[in-house]
């Protein structure tokens, strides 16, 4: 048993008051979940605290929320871990409170807790709990998922469209194909990815990580007969597969290892393989990201528009008419990007101001690219297992020639 303070962003629509923060003291085993903490507060202190929940086991997808600013499931986050995280953030918050642009600054909303609240003592900072982002709040932690999540799921024609009558018995398909789409089938529609998606923040019309992962579930399904139509639809929609900026937030947020971004990349690759045109230049935009990072190690936004629409040296010298038009057309996006903090400030947009990484780091980025190209691997937990295993595998490979590797006494003798 341990004591925790959870600080909940509350909104009671019938009170006529704006949202406010309320702290609850709860007492529970560190291995229990943040949701257990909320339920204890609800049971003991205030039954009007609204939070969707049912399974308590990360399977029903009800309890999406932000915990210490990070989107996830309340029932899957151990309260002890959430406390450590809150303490860590309070420590950083204390140090960098003055720097408005620090990563914690992005949590400005909560920052009141970490800094303004005077609790930046690095121990027992309150665990901050908010409703999911990118969705209107109905009451306390309950958000309107219908308008932001389910309408988008329905947008991708989310049912199987097989060809003709079904066979007498089962469809015979490659076993791997079923394992492959089971990863997106594992989605519990919790909305954590939507809550965390940066593109969605900038473009609320973006179909988004969950719905696109759902789309892959059909595109990757050999029983579906409308693969090309689906891909064309998603590639031609300006808010479709090329609207994703590859930011990894959804991969990070997803409690079920669906890795929505990976599913989006698979959709893009399949679109490419099927020769589906990309009228919104999203694919070239994506390649621009990839090329710039390969060259510079970090994202140089100043090169982005140029690389997207007139790539390479030739492009730089002789941009086509279309490229110029597209570049100008994109300026509002760039401006909005700067405003929402997605892009860096204006000076950084001037070519040359953004420097390459120091030599060593730059080489490592190149090595990553090389590795990825050679292996062209995909991440599917149904095949590879958990992170721990992957890490262990990497360790095994790296250890022998690692510089830090010191032979133990026993080995020296041997």
């Amino acid at each position, binding site marked *: 048993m341990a004591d925790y303070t959870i600080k909940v962003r509350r909104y*009671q*629509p*019938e009170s006529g008051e704006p949202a406010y923060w309320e702290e609850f003291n709860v007492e529970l085993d560190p*291995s*229990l979940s943040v949701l257990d903490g909320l339920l204890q507060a*609800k*049971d*003991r202190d*205030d*039954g*009007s605290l*609204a939070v*969707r*929940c*049912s*399974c*308590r*086991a*990360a*399977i*029903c997808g*009800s309890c999406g929320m932000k915990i210490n600013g990070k989107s996830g499931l309340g029932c*899957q986050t*151990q309260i002890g871990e959430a406390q450590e995280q809150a303490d860590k953030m309070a420590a950083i918050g204390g140090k960098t409170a003055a720097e408005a642009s620090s990563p914690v600054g992005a949590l400005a909303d909560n920052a009141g807790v970490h800094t303004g609240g005077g609790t930046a003592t690095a121990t027992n900072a309150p665990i901050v709990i908010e409703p999911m982002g990118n969705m209107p709040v*109905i*009451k306390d932690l309950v958000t309107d*998922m*219908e308008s932001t999540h389910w309408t988008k799921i*329905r947008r991708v024609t*989310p*049912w*199987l469209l*097989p060809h003709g009558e*079904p066979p007498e*018995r*089962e469809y*015979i*398909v*490659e*076993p791997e194909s*079923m*394992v492959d*789409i*089971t990863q997106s*089938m*594992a*989605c*519990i*529609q919790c909305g954590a990815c939507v809550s965390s998606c940066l593109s969605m923040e900038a473009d609320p019309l973006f179909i988004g990580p969950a719905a696109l992962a759902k789309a892959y*579930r059909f595109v990757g*399904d050999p*029983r579906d007969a409308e693969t090309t139509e689906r891909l064309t639809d998603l590639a031609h929609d300006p808010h479709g597969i090329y609207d994703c900026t590859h930011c990894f937030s959804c991969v990070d947020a997803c409690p079920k290892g669906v890795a929505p971004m990976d599913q989006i990349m698979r959709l893009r690759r399949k679109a490419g393989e099927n020769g589906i045109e990309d009228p919104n230049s999203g694919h070239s935009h994506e390649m621009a990201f990839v090329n710039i990072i390969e060259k510079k190690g970090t994202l140089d936004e100043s090169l982005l528009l140029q690389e997207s629409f007139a790539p390479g040296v030739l492009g730089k010298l002789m941009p086509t008419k279309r490229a110029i038009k597209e570049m100008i057309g994109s300026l509002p996006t760039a401006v909005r990007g700067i405003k929402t903090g997605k892009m860096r400030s204006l000076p950084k947009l001037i070519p040359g101001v953004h420097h390459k990484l120091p030599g060593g780091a730059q080489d490592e980025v190149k090595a990553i690219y090389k590795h990825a190209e050679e292996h062209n691997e995909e991440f599917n*937990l*149904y*095949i*590879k*297992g*958990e992170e*721990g*295993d992957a890490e262990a595998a990497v360790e095994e490979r790296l250890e022998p020639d690692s510089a830090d590797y010191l032979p133990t006494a026993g080995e020296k003798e041997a």
Partner: protein
Amino acid sequence: MPSHDVLVIGAGLAGQRAALAAAEQGVSVGIVSKVHPVRSHSNAAQGGINAALNPDDTWESHAFDTVKGSDYLGDQDAIEIMAREAPEEILHMEHLGVTFHRNEEGKLGTRAFGGASAARTYYVADITGQAIMHVLYEQLMKYSEQITRYEEWFSSSLAIDENGECCGVVTRNVADGSMELFQAKSVILATGGSGQIWKPTTNALICTGDGIAMAYRVGAKLMDMEMIQYHPTTLAGKGFLITEGARGEGALLLNKNGERFMEKYAPNKMELASRDVVSRAEQTEINEGRGFPDGTVALDITVVPKKRIHEALREIVLVGRDFAGVDITREPIHIKPGNHYTMGGVKTDVEGRTDIPGLYAAGEVACVSVHGGNRLGANSLLDTLIFGKHSGRDAAARALRTDWSKPSGKVLEDEQAMIDDISGREKGSGRRVSEIKLELGQTMDAKVAVFRDEAGITEALETVRRLKEEAKTAYIDDHGSIFNQDLLGAIELGYMLDVAECSCIGALERKESRGAQYRTDYPERNDEEWLKHINLEKTEDGPEISYSEVTITQWQPEARTY
């Protein structure tokens, strides 16, 4: 007033399947669920779904295993229908898009499950229930013109017309608190089980027995209410389930001395004996001091090849990691028997018809009875689909030949008055709803669990009756309309207490040991006197007991060994 030919209450597997089956008949269908359909508890089913689909397997073998598993209390006519129609239903699900596991030839592959004489469990990794339910929900979206979805609407009581037939349901829109009388020609209850009456339980917070209580309150008979399944492998204290699929893949049960104790209790089937048998074996080991200090025994999954674990048991890798801090691929995990499944429920025939014309029930809320004294793993999903389908079809057929009718009383006003009463209670006027729920759960888990006796059950019954009184003055904090979960919790408490009372009465009445009902004061099965169902019907002074025959078609009761 929204009206539909067929109104389905509940959108788990049973409800969604029933809605689709009814819609196929060309009637208008409404489906109501107190949570968004994909949040329904069916998604928790990890292990799989049974069918004798393999050419070497037979439906008779599946049916016999089910009969034996039920400790001969299952009705064999219903079991035959379920086993016979299972293969076609699995193929239907596959055709709709369920991503069932394939073998090397690309055909449907199986895994072994408890109490079964062949490997006939079809599965999607360990998210079978979720995968099937999400695919059914895809179909609901596809047929949105025929099927209207009421997502996050809470049904609180059934409406009966002057002929005693069911004609609708009073339902509250959770989002804004508005109350509606939904009119229908047929109503199908598919509200799931009642595991929340026990604490801990593997069941979700929404499994509060609403449909069982709603049907009981309007006079429908309940059956086999004493039959409550304790699952052999749940995490101590938290109630999370480790799927039987783990044992199906070869995991072992060990006591604190590292002994594979199932050798003593079920020398042939070992870990894969029926659930009641394995749960009792574990509890005996624990009670006799061969368990771990935390009152558990160990499940050793490390013997299953890693690749297979990741492919087929990933969900429990996550459960182990997130909820027990154990890497199941590297070390054994501590488990114990925990409340899991409501075998009993609203008594129905094989078409899902209850004693009240126009009222149907399917899935865990119902008692057909295919599970009798003990449900076999992976038979419940099958039950929901088969009898969901039957109910949907029959309810549609009835709707086509029936006229609209009106409730005899003022159901909507009565319901509003009930809510105003709860809402009007002053803080401190009684106990908190949550306190009563906790006491109920702990009492039932202590007294009406794996081992039972007269004194314990009587004590539980007395507690339940006291809590029923206390519930009348229990207060809530939330007096608003929008998303008032507090109020719904108080209504659910009422359902839970009604159902708990019936379970106690049934357990007290059955003076023998059969399936999940193990009476230490009557340790033998007694076919002479007790090869019959206990039925319960509501009266002013509590449930009235009557009996009904067990239907036997071709399998005479035998001693049950594994």
